[in-house]
Structure formats: structure tokens, C-alpha cells
């Protein structure tokens, strides 16, 4: 009970502190709000990019084109060689006939051209379709397959895949950099707010010391004040994330630009993001006030 009463008193004092220096508190809250909105945008962006990367990674396939003169034994030998390459997740043989059928099914134009081809005329080659475990090692796998006798050509959308992945990584890094910079600025602003609060309460702090308040008794209200600034600053970003992302998802019908880029479904994504925003807000607030207390509240 005693602890609860002390906590309640500290929270009450923290509220008083926030409103006593309202213009400064407002500046800190606004800064946290802006930071957290950027954090939210970064999270939405990077989570969706990650999600998209996973989809791309799942779809990327190495196609090894085989010489049409190979015998079925030689084709089997190639399969054995592919199977022992590191990073190969799975592989599948697709004959020229199967590919021809698929192409004819997919387009009327292809169907018209291909329907009269007999087996000797058909220029399409037998293939192995290979998937890798780690997309970053795809080039190495493709190079190894290229060196196998009987493989005439290897294709995996090279260039495009690498560019896409490096673009994603670049976006990721920019987001992280922006968030770190903003968090530091915000922590500094909160630290200044708390410093001024400490200044305006020197008399009270002096009396507290005299009557035997411990360091913890004196410091905790300021830490809670920072925490409170963090909570107040996270309200708008959380609301924006929940409402904004849900509306965005509805507006684009779950896909961005084409069916290929799927957006993450709002629930539970927005709630997880909100929790992260609240935690970041609280931690930034507490860190800022802790810094001020440590620097300016000599006990």
C-alpha cells in the first residue's frame, strides 16, 4: 500500500510538472510525436519491404537450360551435380514438352505458333528449375550450375533481383538512420525540459533533501515526468498508424501498384507497431529525463 501511495504521488507530481512548464512539455511532446510518426512510417515501410522480399525470394528461380542432345542418363547426372551444390533448396526437371504445353496454355499467340511444331523443330530446351535457400547466394549457385557440362544457359533474373534487394536494403538503412537521429534529438529536448523543471523545483528538492527524502524519492518524479511525455507523445502516432494503415490497406485493396506487391494485413500488424511506438516513446522519454536528472540533480 505504501509503495502504491508513493507511486500515485509521484505520478501526480509528474502531471503537475508537465503542466507547470506546459510550453516546454508541448515542445517535447511534439518532438516525440514527429519522431514516432517517422518511426511508424519506417516500420510500415520496412516491414512491408521485408514481406515483399520474402515473396520475391520465394519466387526467384534459377532456370538451367540443358542441351537438347543430352541423353536421359546425362540429364540424371546433371541432377546429381545440382543436388550437391550448397544453398540449393529444391530443384525440379521441366521437359521441353511440359514447357511448350504451359506456354501454349498461357497465350493464344504462343498456341498458334507452337501447335504445329514437332519434337525436332521445337527450339525450346529441357530445363532444371532450382530454388535457393539464401537469395544473397543466388549468383554463386548460378555460376556453379553454369559450369556443369550439358548446361547451355543459366537465367535467374540476374541484375534485377540484386538491384531490388540492394534498393530494399538502402530504404531500410535510410529509415534506421532517420529514426536514430530523431530519437537523439528528441531525447535531448526532453532532457532540456526536465532540466528546466528541476531548476524550477530547486526549492522543493532542497526541502525534500532536508526532510530525509532518499535519492530515489527525489529522482523518480522526474523520470515519471519523462515517461509521461513519452506516453503523451505516442498518442497521435499510434492513432495515425492504426487508422492510417488500415485505410491505406483498404484503399489499395491489399496490393501496391500490382498484384505482385502484397501489403501486410492490418491486424495484428498495426497493434504490434503501436506497442513498439509506445515502448519507443516511453524509453526515449525516460532516457531524456534520466540524462537530465543525472546531470543536473546533484545529490
Amino acid at each position: 500500500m505504501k509503495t502504491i501511495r508513493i507511486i500515485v504521488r509521484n505520478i501526480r507530481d509528474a502531471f503537475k510538472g508537465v503542466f507547470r512548464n506546459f510550453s516546454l512539455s508541448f515542445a517535447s511532446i511534439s518532438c516525440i510525436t514527429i519522431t514516432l510518426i517517422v518511426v511508424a512510417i519506417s516500420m510500415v515501410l520496412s516491414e512491408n519491404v521485408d514481406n515483399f522480399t520474402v515473396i520475391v525470394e520465394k519466387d526467384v528461380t534459377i532456370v538451367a537450360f540443358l542441351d537438347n542432345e543430352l541423353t536421359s542418363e546425362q540429364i540424371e547426372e546433371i541432377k546429381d551435380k545440382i543436388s550437391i551444390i550448397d544453398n540449393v533448396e529444391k530443384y525440379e526437371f521441366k521437359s521441353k514438352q511440359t514447357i511448350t504445353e504451359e506456354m501454349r496454355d498461357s497465350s493464344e499467340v504462343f498456341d498458334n505458333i507452337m501447335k504445329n511444331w514437332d519434337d525436332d523443330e521445337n527450339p525450346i530446351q529441357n530445363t532444371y528449375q532450382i530454388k535457393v535457400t539464401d537469395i544473397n547466394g543466388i549468383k554463386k549457385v548460378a555460376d556453379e550450375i553454369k559450369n556443369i557440362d550439358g548446361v547451355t544457359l543459366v537465367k535467374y533474373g540476374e541484375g534485377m533481383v540484386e538491384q531490388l534487394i540492394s534498393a530494399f536494403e538502402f530504404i531500410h538503412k535510410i529509415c534506421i538512420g532517420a529514426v536514430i537521429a530523431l530519437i537523439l534529438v528528441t531525447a535531448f529536448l526532453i532532457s532540456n525540459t526536465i532540466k528546466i523543471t528541476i531548476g524550477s523545483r530547486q526549492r522543493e528538492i532542497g526541502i525534500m533533501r532536508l526532510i530525509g527524502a532518499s535519492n530515489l524519492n527525489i529522482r523518480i518524479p522526474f523520470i515519471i515526468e519523462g515517461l509521461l511525455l513519452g506516453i503523451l507523445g505516442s498518442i497521435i502516432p499510434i492513432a495515425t498508424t492504426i487508422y492510417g494503415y488500415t485505410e491505406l490497406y483498404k484503399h489499395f485493396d491489399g496490393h501496391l501498384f500490382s498484384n505482385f506487391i502484397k501489403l501486410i494485413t492490418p491486424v495484428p500488424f498495426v497493434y504490434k507497431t503501436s506497442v513498439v511506438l509506445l515502448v519507443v516513446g516511453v524509453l526515449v522519454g525516460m532516457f531524456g529525463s534520466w540524462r537530465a536528472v543525472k546531470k543536473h540533480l546533484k545529490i
Partner: protein
Amino acid sequence: MDLIKLTNVKKTYRTGVTAIQDLNLRIAKGDFVFIIGSTGCGKSTLIKMLYREEKPTSGQIVVGGIDVGKLRNGKVYKIRRKIGVVFQDYKLLPKSTVFENVAFALEIFGLPKDEIYAKVIKVLELVGLKNKIKNYPSQLSGGEQQRVAIARAIVNGPKLLICDEPTGNLDPETSMEIMQVLEEINKLGTTIIMVTHDINIVKQMNKRVIVLDSGRVLKDYEKGTYSHENN
């Protein structure tokens, strides 16, 4: 039994000024002691060391069984909870009422509301301010403000009350009223150490008097002898 014991205490500030030297002193529980002396004689340094605002350079200071000089900064609150301190400038919170100013000393320790109310009212009654609980410091006279400060200092039931020139800003009549309040508190068992320049108060109260000079005890008078020797 001694509440305070100082043995070979010396205090030299960083500036090189020695405020206290070779000080040996014993103050018994329940005593009422005046500390007097000219400006710069070490009175303030002495009482600051008692509530551990300052640390002795050498020697030992024991207050209520605690070796004050050895207390780390983080543990100073342990001694402060056994001591009440009253200053010349009252040190009240201007935006808080009389009740809130006194209750403040209890609230930070998490006491229940009804207990706080009972203790604050009791102590305000003792200092004669029960009817002014809702007033703000600016609405009170100097003497009344000092009574609030005394009430706040004793509301936790300290063993020792240190008063640093509590009547310094007050007229003679109000000063005597404050002294009567302090005497009442002393009668209830609280040891009182009071620093003052007011010789009239010292004479009228007829208590133990310690005279400091250049950081040393010049004289230590028992009751009544002081006024006689100085006249």
C-alpha cells in the same frame, strides 16, 4: 545519554579556510542548547555537519548512533530522517497551503491520508496554527511562517531539532513566541540545538550555552551562568 558526540572534529574548506578545529562536544538527549559566537566562528559549519550538509575533514561526529562523517551521499537521508531543521528564511513552498507544506514531509514517505491529516493537525495545534491550515505562506506573518517551518520539521517526530537563527527575521515579541513553541517541543523530549545571535533570547531562556570562537569551543555554560558572566 549522549545524542550527539563530536570527537576531535576539524573542518577545512577547499578554499583553505578552517572553520572548525579540535572540537569535542557532547549533547545529551532532551537537551536544549544554544550555540553562539561572532560571525565566522564556525556555528553554521558545526550544524551543517550535524545534518551532513558538510563532512568533517577529520574526527568523528555521531548523531543518534550514526557516524555522520562516514555516511555516503546516497545514504544521507538516513540521518536527515532523525533530524528536523529550521532556517531563518523558513524555506516554505509558496504555492502550497500551510497544511500542504507540513503534509509534504509525510507524503513523500507514502503515509496514508488519514494518518497524514491527524499528524499535521496535531503538530499545527502544537505551534498554534490550527486555524490557518488553508492559508498560503504569503498570507502569514513572519512568526507564523516560522511556526509552519517548525511544524514541518517536527511532524516526522525527529529526535533532534536544529534551528539556524530561527528568530533572525523576527521582532523581539514574535521571537519569544517562537521560543515558547520550541520550549514546548523540547519538553516533549526533542533535543534542540539553536544557533543565534540574539543574546536576549539566550539570557531569557536560561539553557546550556556553547560559545564558539575560531572554530573552537570557547566556553560551555550550564544553565543561567552565561548571562551572569557576560554582564
